[in-house]
């Protein structure tokens, strides 16, 4: 109809077009805004998702290098240059792109074999035929020419000279060796054919005049004889303290070399189920020993401190996934991950901390000369017995993350037992990141819990009084005050809590507890006495002005509690309740603790709960309460039997929304707790919440790193949690509203 009128002349047609355009614009705008809101959820999810994607391994092809007799292989950071070292000590650098030999370095002295250093595979130790040692270091220099094209110049340096170190007295044949190189010393373990195990420490010092590096060696021989044929390998920890002698039959013997002149043999460990050892390696950091067994499992072990303050080698976890004997293990150089290859050509990527098999793939090789992972662990290379190199590309961005790493107790290196720990970064790069969200989630719930303990009674009782008993005149001024309370920025609450309230509480702890008792008792006493007031006064109290009447009373009670509390401190607790707590009761006390947060965050959620609960109670149809009162019930009885049961869903949703707010609150917890991710329920200790953790660590986290994504995961968890709680609460409220309107 209106369409006809509008179409009748050009002006009206224009109006019609405008109308249509407005309709389209508003619809688009409205939907756009709603989509934008949805985008938050989608984007968070999009960032988090790669954490849970499995790794990808892509075959890059094979190259026939005809290299035989190879004992060591490695690849540079850019995946461009391959390094091969033969048993006889000859070294070659080969460009991977065209298999051209870039540099060929014949051994300065005929060699028997070479080993990589624990956790520092760039450092090589060559054992010469006549029992000497030669240390070499792979260096890859990048050079840019005029066009900005990059070339890599590989080099094998011998920082301590080309002459082998003479370590053993006689020209003794060495059959096994292990060594660990760190900044100021190297530790070497050598097993001679005479079944003797030698331990050598090389102290590195710089000559003050020539600036050349010098080695100073000390040497010890371990007691007893070692059956050379029975020993699968030797491994040594990065600090040189632990020397592991690993037998083929699954027995691992740790030697404590902290006092090398007096080496002590620690507890012997047998692999479970009669498994035999087929390979072994130290994990990044040189603390964990990885042992590959003939049953296809890899076992992780490290020394654990016992009660008596000595160490015991302990089996920490094992990694299944391969079907037959593990013949090669190679650790990543920047993460606690490794790759393992089985006898029949299966390979698997693992992450030790996350206890996770990241990816399994077939290499289809059964005789292996050498395997390696480049420093970035973005590829994997295998040299088979025929001298054919096989390469794979690896996309393995976030192996550190698994369900157990995020939520379960994990036995980290250097810990006495499995624990929940959040410690995302440290200064050294062989650090084991600890991404357990459990202590943070615990802290979040703990903070919310203490806030609710403080807020629920005040908010609900306050709401009941305001909605049901309060005089309208007073209600008019109370409601804006509560609204102001809700609007107060949390940064101000947090600042007051941290800088003013926390020190105050520390000095007046007994007053706080005194107040909890004194306040209700005092109010009740006053109420009882009120009855005997002159009638004129008393009626005011009856008419819903009790709240106002009580204000001076409460001021007096608070003053009394503070004064009495201080006196009590003086008489019973030696003047300081907090000191008495820590010294006599053994309770640890942080100045910024859950109690303080409870008050401050309680303060922040009271108005939220109050407003919604008050609304629910106030909107209970008057017919209900009037009916009850008409039947002779007292106002209190009406409230308890009629009003509250009707309004209870609304009150419940108020609590949920308040809880949701407490869970997500950031500034208060950031400022009023010490932000240490500890897990205990004590009111006197601090904690760290998910939100505060994001605020603290997000600015420093590297874009798209695992840490970054885990922080996004924390945000997503917060988002989902509050969204679900709020939606549930909102649905309950909607239902309630419908119920009221039908009543």
């Amino acid at each position, binding site marked *: 109809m209106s369409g006809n009128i509008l179409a009748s002349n050009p002006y009206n047609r224009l*109006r*019609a077009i*405008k*109308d249509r*355009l*407005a309709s389209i614009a*508003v*619809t688009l*705008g*409205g*939907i756009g*805004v709603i989509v*934008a*809101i949805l*985008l*938050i959820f989608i*984007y*968070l999810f999009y960032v988090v998702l790669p954490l849970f994607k499995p790794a990808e391994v892509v075959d890059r092809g094979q190259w026939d290098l005809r290299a035989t007799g190879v004992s060591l292989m490695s690849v540079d950071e850019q995946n461009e240059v391959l390094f091969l070292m033969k048993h006889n000590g000859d070294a070659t650098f080969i460009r991977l792109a065209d298999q051209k030999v870039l540099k060929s370095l014949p051994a300065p002295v005929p060699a028997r074999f070479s080993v990589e250093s624990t956790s520092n595979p760039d450092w090589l130790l060559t054992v010469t035929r006549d029992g000497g040692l030669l240390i070499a270091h792979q260096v890859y220099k990048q050079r840019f020419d005029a066009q900005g094209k990059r070339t890599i110049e590989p080099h094998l340096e011998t920082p301590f000279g080309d002459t082998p170190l003479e370590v053993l007295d006689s020209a003794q044949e060495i059959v096994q060796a292990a060594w660990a190189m760190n900044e100021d010393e190297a530790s070497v373990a050598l097993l001679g054919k005479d079944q003797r195990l030698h331990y050598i420490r090389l102290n590195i010092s710089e000559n003050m005049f020539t600036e050349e590096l010098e080695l100073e060696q000390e040497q010890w021989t371990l007691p007893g004889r070692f059956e050379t044929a029975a020993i699968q390998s030797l491994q040594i920890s990065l600090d040189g303290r632990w020397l592991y002698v690993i037998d083929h039959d699954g027995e691992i013997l740790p030697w404590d070399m902290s006092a090398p002149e007096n080496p002590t043999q620690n507890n012997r460990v047998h692999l479970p189920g009669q498994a035999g050892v087929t390979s072994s390696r130290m994990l990044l950091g040189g603390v964990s020993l990885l042992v590959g067994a003939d049953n296809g499992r890899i076992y992780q072990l490290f020394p654990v401190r016992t009660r008596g303050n000595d160490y015991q080698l302990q089996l920490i976890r094992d990694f299944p996934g391969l079907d037959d004997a593990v013949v090669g293990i190679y650790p990543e150089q920047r993460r606690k991950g490794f790759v393992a290859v089985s006898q029949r050509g299966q390979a698997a990527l693992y992450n030790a901390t996350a206890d996770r098999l990241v990816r399994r793939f077939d290499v289809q090789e059964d005789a292996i000369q050498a395997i390696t992972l480049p420093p970035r662990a973005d590829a994997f290379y295998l040299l088979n017995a025929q001298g054919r190199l096989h390469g794979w590309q690896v996309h393995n961005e976030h192996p550190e993350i698994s369900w157990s790493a995020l939520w379960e107790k994990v036995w980290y290196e250097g810990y006495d037992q499995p624990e929940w720990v959040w410690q995302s970064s440290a200064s050294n790069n062989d650090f084991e990141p600890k991404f357990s969200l459990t202590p943070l989630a615990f802290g979040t719930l703990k903070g919310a819990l203490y806030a609710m303990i403080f807020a629920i009674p005040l*908010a*609900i*009782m*306050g709401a009941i*009084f*305001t909605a049901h*008993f309060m005089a309208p005149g007073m209600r008019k001024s109370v409601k804006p005050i*509560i609204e102001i*309370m809700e*609007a*107060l*920025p*949390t940064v*101000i609450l947090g*600042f*007051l809590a941290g*800088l003013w309230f926390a020190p105050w509480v520390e000095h007046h702890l007994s007053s706080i507890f005194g107040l909890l008792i004194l*306040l209700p008792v005092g109010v009740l006493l006053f*109420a*009882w006495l009120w009855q005997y007031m002159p009638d004129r006064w008393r009626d005011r109290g009856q008419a819903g002005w*009790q*709240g*106002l009447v009580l204000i001076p009373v409460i001021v007096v009670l608070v003053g009394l509690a503070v004064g009495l509390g201080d006196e009590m401190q*003086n008489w019973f607790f*030696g*003047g*300081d309740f907090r*000191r008495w707590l820590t010294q006599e009761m053994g309770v640890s006390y942080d100045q910024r603790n859950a109690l303080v947060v409870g008050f401050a965050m309680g303060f922040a959620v009271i108005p939220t709960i109050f407003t919604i609960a008050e609304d629910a109670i106030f909107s209970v149809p008057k017919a209900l309460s009037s009916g009850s009162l008409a039947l002779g019930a007292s106002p*209190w*009885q009406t409230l308890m039997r009629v009003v509250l049961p009707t309004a209870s869903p609304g009150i419940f949703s108020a609590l949920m*929304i308040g809880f949701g*707010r407490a869970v*997500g609150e*950031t500034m208060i917890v950031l*400022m009023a707790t010490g932000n240490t991710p500890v897990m205990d329920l004590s009111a006197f200790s601090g904690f760290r919440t998910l*939100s505060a953790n994001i605020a603290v660590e997000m600015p420093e986290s590297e874009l798209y790193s695992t840490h970054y994504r885990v922080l*996004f995961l924390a*945000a997503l968890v917060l*988002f989902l949690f*509050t969204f679900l709680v*709020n939606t549930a609460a*909102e649905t309950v409220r909607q239902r309630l509203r419908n119920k009221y309107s039908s009543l």
Partner: protein
Amino acid sequence: MVNPMRQWWRQGEPWIWLNAAAVAVCVLMILGLLMLISARGMSHFWPRPVLQVEYQQRDGGTVRFLGEVTDREQVPAQILRDNGEAVPEDVLQVERLLLKTGNRKLTGKDFNWLLEPRIMAVDMPADAMVVERHEWGNFYGFLLDILQDGQRQHLQGEALTEALKAKVELAQTLYEQIKHIEKVEIGGINYEMERLRLKKRRHELDGTLTSEVLQQLAEEKKVLDARYAELEKARNVLLEKSNHDALLFRTADGREVTLPTKVVVRYYQPNTMGFGQKVRHYFVKLWEFVSDEPREANTEGGIFPAIFGTVIMVIIMSIIVTPFGVVAAVYLREYAHQGLLVRIIRIAVNNLAGVPSIVYGVFGLGFFVYAIGGTIDQLFFPEALPAPTFGTGGLLWASLTLALLTLPVVIVSTEEGLSRIPKAIREGSLALGATKAETLWRTVLPMASPAMMTGMILAVARAAGEVAPLMLVGVVKLAPTLPLDGNAPFLHLDRKFMHLGFHIYDVGFQSPNVEAARPLVYATAFLLVVVIVALNLLAIYIRNRLRERYRSLEQH
């Protein structure tokens, strides 16, 4: 006969009283908090007397302190005894006071805790002087003389006061001039230079770096260099001028100290100030606080950049959030089909108000800063890379993040306003032949405009106090330049800025000298609270008037 106590109890009277007590406690808490902040925040600028304290040290010797009492507290005697203090057995609590003694450059600390029993004598010397400095905090001492080029002038009494005034005024004028040259003029040249560098790099990237371009750039640079050299010379002359005069002081412990006049911000002798002078001093300090830049790692001076940053961020945010919020509300209320979907959307929008603000910050950082900002940098500012332009937190991203955060506030408030407009008005308009758009534009929206206002005010109040998301998307503790200045394009959306709320967090918790910063944090908090309470009261007022108007409309 019924026991009156029992009847009283059974009627629920005590419970009602307890409930009333809960309301009273809530009201008292909020009032107490507001009073605490106002008292602490407002008292900071009032000049306090300077005390000279004779203090007995533990080894028996005495020292003399000069300073202001900033705090007092009771210490349990037992703690002091444990620390080896001789306290009589019958004493339970010992009072100690915190004296702000300043002179950090000399003694290494600004504050001293003094135990009451060990204070031998206190007096208020009339000639004790407080000097506020550009660096190293306050100085407390007695003025002895004025030095000119290191020579004592042997001035006394009135002459000394006059000379002091003249010299300090001269130094302050010079300081202002130097600051102007350094900040505004040289700052402008640096900005131009950086633009030239980027221009050159841009040409380099585009492959259009011809010799003409190079020459042109070189010429422009030459002009700038010449201007720079000129300015630097002018500055050096001023600097040289400001180096002549110095003040000779005696500190409380008898040392003679020379202060160049150029470090002096303000000096006063609080012990001889009359009430009027104190009031004047108070307002001068207050004005400095709101209009000046911070000094001393934000622990002194003013907070103008923080106020400015907050205001400009809030303005940009309102410009973004209001139209979108209103459009979304109009869509939900007027255009969308009122079915299940709209109900779900409404619930979702309501709930977004309850999503933790830090989540918005994380989203803003990931999506706006890294994803969109990074792309903008690559497309439009490749010359500045690897230094990010929009690929790092800044004003625009902070405003957008907060706009998203406050969107639900505006939507909910506008929707409420729309829903309260009586149906009759819409129908009347439609019946007279207006189209839906015309009805909306001419009758519905004007009537709902106070509701939109309310929504916007609430959004502004929320944004002004929000800190957590801003920490991730562009707020810094000290911004070298304001986001709005005299260099084209004048409004720099990519710049980082300061914010009142973050200022409170940073100075209160990250500052190396929290004790010295505390009064200023209270003052900042007070300012923020005043702004937010005022905005909220305004919103409440508008809303109440609006409700009354609708009520009267419905009755007609």
